[in-house]
């Protein structure tokens, strides 16, 4: 079948030790990646109807690690692994969440003959899953339990394929040979302990850092999944794939730095430094994990020795560096900040920074109201503190027991939740997820509330210049919106959807609270849902909407790749419609888990001055009948405006405006009658 799919999905029930294969064709209508993962989650976790979807550590939780059809075909950046499950990290309750990680796991999974691996149940003792082409075994992980992520991968690598030592040899697997190493995703001690801030770690620094899925592995007694494969992936048009790749590269590649490293296999960006400690695999969140707000933070790739050692701790323990940040990627001046801030705020604060804040306030520390034992708060700046921090969370001793439940649960227990969310000390826009470019890009912010936190989608981020850390825009606002308006089928021809006006009547009529902005968000979710999250193309590589001063290659480029690999007759508009279907499947799961319009709200600080940090970003605005770029460093959201936006958005999506639940007609239009029937039976269908 020459369409990029491996053809089958591995399903492992750790309770019964049953290993089986699902025909991928059953789920191809959802593309791959998150789309397939969500559809499988519905079938295995929601449809049986015996689980309320509330406890991420319930054995009935189904965690999927999925590739897309473009993986292992040579399409750059398409080697990401999508992860879906009920996530333990979200607040106030676990939510259906999706994240992804780069590296070589998905590619190797495809070469082994699998489009994804789905795990449910719970092993009665620690295990790891060993995939060698078609041969899948559940192995004893008791000797691995307690090892860090490097040690774990080292042990498994030396065990796979008959304790072969991988060096510069070809290694025989049945009749085939490979020079590749097994690709492994695993958890560290923090995941084993079922904390809510545990990551999945792959290689020397790649990880799934949001959602806390390391804890889900831990709850299933699953230490790791290893895969090595030697098979073919057939595509519809091999020459077309290569031609498209070369066209992409010759015209739009960012260009290599020396010596750079790619994260995914393959890629054409050298966005990491190969001569860094982790061979280019660790990312900003890891490297900044050790940087406090009082310390200058060199940008990614120029990491200091301190950063390297900090990342070393975080990755080996397997902690979510996103949720537990000690500072932010950028330390920003904040003259009006409360005294403990010392005139500065991190852009993306997390758990590590928050405990320092409380220490400075005098409420947390040895013998204080919030006892900091065993954390040596006077050594907060040191690497030793990070080690003790991870150990305390893992063993759940002293304050570690509180923090293991997540920073908002800890704040709630300490009676500080409301005060600190109102003050902005807990700058988590929604669902307990870290701040991450949430404003002034309102499509990014709105995605937080309609999903389960950070969308991790930079697609519209840099448009306008400055907001993407670039220089001034090389085009006018009018040129930008007219170019973009041609790209967003089926909402093409409406430049107003790109207006970011947030003041006065324009904000309500054509700006960020309007029905126009609802279309922009809807398109973003549909495009990202299909191409980035289900075709699994790295969102740091594509889309590329504006290249220099003219139109970039997206979305036509992604569509060319899709056509060359799959041979599908779908039009570009059809693929965006599949994105809508995926979006509705995600929505249906969230609604079945309790999602309601009333819950889709921002944290209070998003409605106050200071919600946007001064990043030098500018956005296109249509005001007083004219287009211009506007510096929006002072943007914050109006509560009523957000409510109006929600009404517009629900209506556009065909969801009930009172509840936010999909209606039968919407679901049936998308071919999801069975989903509608089940939601109807549970009283969750929109009217």
């Amino acid at each position, binding site marked *: 079948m020459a369409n990029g799919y491996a053809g089958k999905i591995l399903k492992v029930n750790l309770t019964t030790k049953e290993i089986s294969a699902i025909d991928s064709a059953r789920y191809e209508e959802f593309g791959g990646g998150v789309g397939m993962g969500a559809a499988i989650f519905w079938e295995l976790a929601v449809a049986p109807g015996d689980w309320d979807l509330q406890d991420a550590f319930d054995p009935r939780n189904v965690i999927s690690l999925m590739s897309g059809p473009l993986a292992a075909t040579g399409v750059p950046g398409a080697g990401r692994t999508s992860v879906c499950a009920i996530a333990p990290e979200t607040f106030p309750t676990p939510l259906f969440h999706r994240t992804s990680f780069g590296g070589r796991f998905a590619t190797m999974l495809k*070469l082994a003959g699998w489009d994804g691996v789905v795990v449910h149940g719970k092993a009665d003792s620690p295990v790891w899953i060993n995939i060698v082409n078609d041969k899948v075994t559940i192995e004893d992980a008791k000797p691995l339990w307690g090892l860090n992520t490097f040690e774990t991968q080292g042990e498994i690598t030396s065990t796979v394929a008959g304790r072969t030592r991988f060096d*510069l040899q070809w290694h025989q697997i049945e009749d085939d040979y490979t020079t*590749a190493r097994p690709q492994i995703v695993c958890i560290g001690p923090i995941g084993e302990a079922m904390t809510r801030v545990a990551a999945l770690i792959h290689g020397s620094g790649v990880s799934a850092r949001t959602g806390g899925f390391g804890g889900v592995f831990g709850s299933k007694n699953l230490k790791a999944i290893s895969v090595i494969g030697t098979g073919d992936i057939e595509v519809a048009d091999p020459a077309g794939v290569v031609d498209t790749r070369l066209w992409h590269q010759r015209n739009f590649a960012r260009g290599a730095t020396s010596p750079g490293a790619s994260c995914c296999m393959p890629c054409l960006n050298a966005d990491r430094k190969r001569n860094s400690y982790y061979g280019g695999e660790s990312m900003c969140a890891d490297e900044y994990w050790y940087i406090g707000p009082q310390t200058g933070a060199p940008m990614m790739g120029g990491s200091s020795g301190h950063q390297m050692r900090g990342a070393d701790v975080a990755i080996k323990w397997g902690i979510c560096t996103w949720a537990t940040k000690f500072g932010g990627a950028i330390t920003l001046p904040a003259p009006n900040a409360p005294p403990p801030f010392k005139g500065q705020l991190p852009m993306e604060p997390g758990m590590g920074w928050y405990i320092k804040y409380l220490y400075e306030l005098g409420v947390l520390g040895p013998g204080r109201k919030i006892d900091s034992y065993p954390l040596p708060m006077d050594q907060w700046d040191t690497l030793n503190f990070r080690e003790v921090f991870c150990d305390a969370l893992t063993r759940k001793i002293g304050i570690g027991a509180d923090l293991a439940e997540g920073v908002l649960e800890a704040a709630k227990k300490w009676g500080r939740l409301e005060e600190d969310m109102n003050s902005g000390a807990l700058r988590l826009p929604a669902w307990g997820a870290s701040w991450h470019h949430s404003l002034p890009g309102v499509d990014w912010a709105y995605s937080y509330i309609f999903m389960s936190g950070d969308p991790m989608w930079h697609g519209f981020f840099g448009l306008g210049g400055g907001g993407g850390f670039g220089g001034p825009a090389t085009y006018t606002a009018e040129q930008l919106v007219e170019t973009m308006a041609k790209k967003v089928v089926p909402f093409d021809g409406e430049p107003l959807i790109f207006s970011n006006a947030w003041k006065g009547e324009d904000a309500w009529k054509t700006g960020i609270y309007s029905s126009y902005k609802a279309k922009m968000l809807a398109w973003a979710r549909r495009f990202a849902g299909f191409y980035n999250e289900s075709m699994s193309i790295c969102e740091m590589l594509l889309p590329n909407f504006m290249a220099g001063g003219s139109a970039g290659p997206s979305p036509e480029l992604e569509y060319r790749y899709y056509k060359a690999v799959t041979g599908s007759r779908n039009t570009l508009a059809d693929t965006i419609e599949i994105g809508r279907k995926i979006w509705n499947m995600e929505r249906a799961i969230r609604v079945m888990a309790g999602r309601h319009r009333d819950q889709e709200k921002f944290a209070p600080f998003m409605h106050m001055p200071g919600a946007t940090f001064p990043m030098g970003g500018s956005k296109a605005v249509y005001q007083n009948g004219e287009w211009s770029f506007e510096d929006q460093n002072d943007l914050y959201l109006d509560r009523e405006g957000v409510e109006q936006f929600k009404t517009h958005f629900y209506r556009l999506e065909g969801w009930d405006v009172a509840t936010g639940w999909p209606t039968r007609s919407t679901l049936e239009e998308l071919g999801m009658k069975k989903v509608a029937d089940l939601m109807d039976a549970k009283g969750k269908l929109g009217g």
Partner: protein
Amino acid sequence: MAESRNTESNKKTVLRRDFLRGSGAVLAAGTLSVGVSQIPAAASPQAAETKSYPKSTGYIVYDSRLCLGCQSCMFACSMTHEGVANPSLSRIQIIRDAPSFTHYPYDVVMSVCRQCVSPLCVQNCPTGACHVDEENGNVRRIEPSKCIGCRRCIQSCPHKPHRTIWNSAKNKSTKCDLCADAPYWNEKGGPEGKQACVETCPAKALKLVREAPPQMDISGYDVNLAPPPRKMGFPGMGMPKTESKPAAKKEGA
């Protein structure tokens, strides 16, 4: 390697990463094995020292420090030659060490066919399938219709890992032909044309050269392809000092 690999002393160094086993050496563990009785008689390996072949007019050299480890070349190779994506069938192998956590510059090994001046794969082929293609710039290549799958070419390749590739589905050997026969590509290949791996490499860490590199070790092939540093500073102030690349790891280190 880059800063020292062009020195005379290092040209004589046999590096661990690209160890020349030499003619007739015993196969290392993990290499392809085949029953000796099934192998047709072939020319003596020792004859390589006396038999000469016309040199290839093209050689791919590389810069292992510049490589991103992205393996784009491997996918391009298998896709253009075999019509499928399969790194195991790629005639160029990029071995990236993660998750073994070896540090730069030893985290990536580039394994590229050298189009040897004295090609043992050609010399040891019992059927003439592995031959010097005079119509395509003397590139060393394997004619599939003549290959009987004896794997002599694989056994005799002196490099580690061997550069001749086993295709189990076809039960035949393959090797780099500089894209002289790349049926799934719309570009003209061969020594006079383009090579999919070179074209696809985003780091420009692969390059086709005309002169045969020194054959003794890898120093002639693993060369410095880094672009010259961009000129900075005020006009007339000269080039700023650039950070030198780390020294090569010594054999056995």
